[in-house]
């Protein structure tokens, strides 16, 4: 379980999180939606301790993180995986070594055969063929790099996954592949997923709950159905866009 209690975070003059509070339950898929630059990624960075709150509390799996040492945070980061907005692959390593990086660093005793098995298994989940393994990141398209970065996070079998815009820059087929994967991980393995996204359409398809952010706080918190009927103006604005995505193509036929 993840819980924020009155978290405040300021950068220079700008207060990004203004006493934000919310709870995310085990196994839930929660989408965090809001306009660009509102602090959605900042929330994710607090959950794995890459940022600390100016005040307030961040609870992850029953522990309050804001005063954790780096060593204590490492234990959290083994169980909570983060997929960054940009692939951030290591250019000098092959795709195989990129995906295996975490598993080798965290479990050095693991036999190479098992590392191979784990890497190949995750590759298949993401529509990637094994012939990419020997290649380098610069030889792959952006969409492929993005899926490789997802495989790299999955390889440690985390109990909680944080996604920062997982489908940005992906074509419709791969967007659905990633959405389907998030759904399967949640349903089959009870993986908790926190997804930062602009895509209300994806949120309506797979989220258990949607948190809508504005002005540094949660302005709407509910199921996709709650969001569809929300009287919040921003929710309505995002919803119009999602409807257009769902019905738009049909209109043109």
């Amino acid at each position: 379980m993840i819980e924020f209690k009155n978290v405040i975070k300021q950068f220079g003059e700008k207060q990004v999180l203004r006493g934000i509070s919310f709870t995310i339950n085990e196994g839930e898929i929660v989408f965090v939606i809001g306009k660009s630059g509102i602090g959605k990624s900042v929330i994710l960075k607090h959950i794995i301790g890459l940022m600390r709150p100016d005040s307030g509390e961040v609870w992850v799996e029953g522990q309050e993180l804001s005063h954790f040492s780096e060593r204590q945070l490492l234990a959290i980061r083994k169980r909570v995986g983060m997929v960054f907005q940009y692939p951030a692959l290591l250019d000098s390593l092959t795709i195989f070594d990129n995906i295996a990086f975490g598993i080798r660093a965290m479990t050095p005793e693991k036999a190479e055969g098992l590392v191979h098995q784990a890497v190949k298994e995750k590759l298949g989940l993401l529509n990637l063929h094994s012939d990419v393994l020997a290649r380098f990141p610069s030889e792959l398209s952006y969409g492929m790099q993005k899926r490789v970065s997802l495989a790299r996070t999955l390889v440690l079998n985390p109990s909680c996954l944080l996604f920062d815009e997982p489908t940005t820059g992906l074509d419709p087929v791969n967007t659905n592949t990633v959405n389907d994967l998030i759904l399967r991980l949640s349903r089959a393995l009870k993986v908790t997923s926190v997804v930062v996204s602009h895509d209300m359409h994806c949120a309506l398809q797979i989220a258990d709950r949607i948190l809508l952010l504005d002005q540094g706080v949660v302005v709407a918190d509910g199921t996709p159905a709650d969001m569809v009927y929300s009287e919040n103006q921003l929710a309505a604005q995002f919803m119009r866009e999602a409807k257009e995505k769902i019905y738009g193509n049909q209109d043109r036929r």
Partner: protein
Amino acid sequence: MIHEISGGMQKRLGIARALILLPEAVLYDDPTAGLDPITSRQIVDLISAMKTRYHMTVLLVTNDLNRAFDLATRVGFLYGGDFMKIGSPAELANSSIPELQQFIRGDIEGPLTQKGLN
């Protein structure tokens, strides 16, 4: 400085920089990727307004089908190193090419995924 402004503002700045010499043609590489729907709409409107006002040719690369269908006179569907189909948005939407249909619907199963989609 650049890092002090939002992603949407950075995109609009990028467009302003490309347009300042009033070119005859503008190339856009995924101009709405990573933007919230409200900002994304502003960018599309901006591209459209600039095109009309200055009679610019626009070549735009995107994964965003709705944007492509809103803006384009013609859409080209690129697959396997060549255009599989070029036509009006309506022609593409009504095409019976299985790969294109799968792409438009976003189906996980289909010819694109069997052959290996980039």
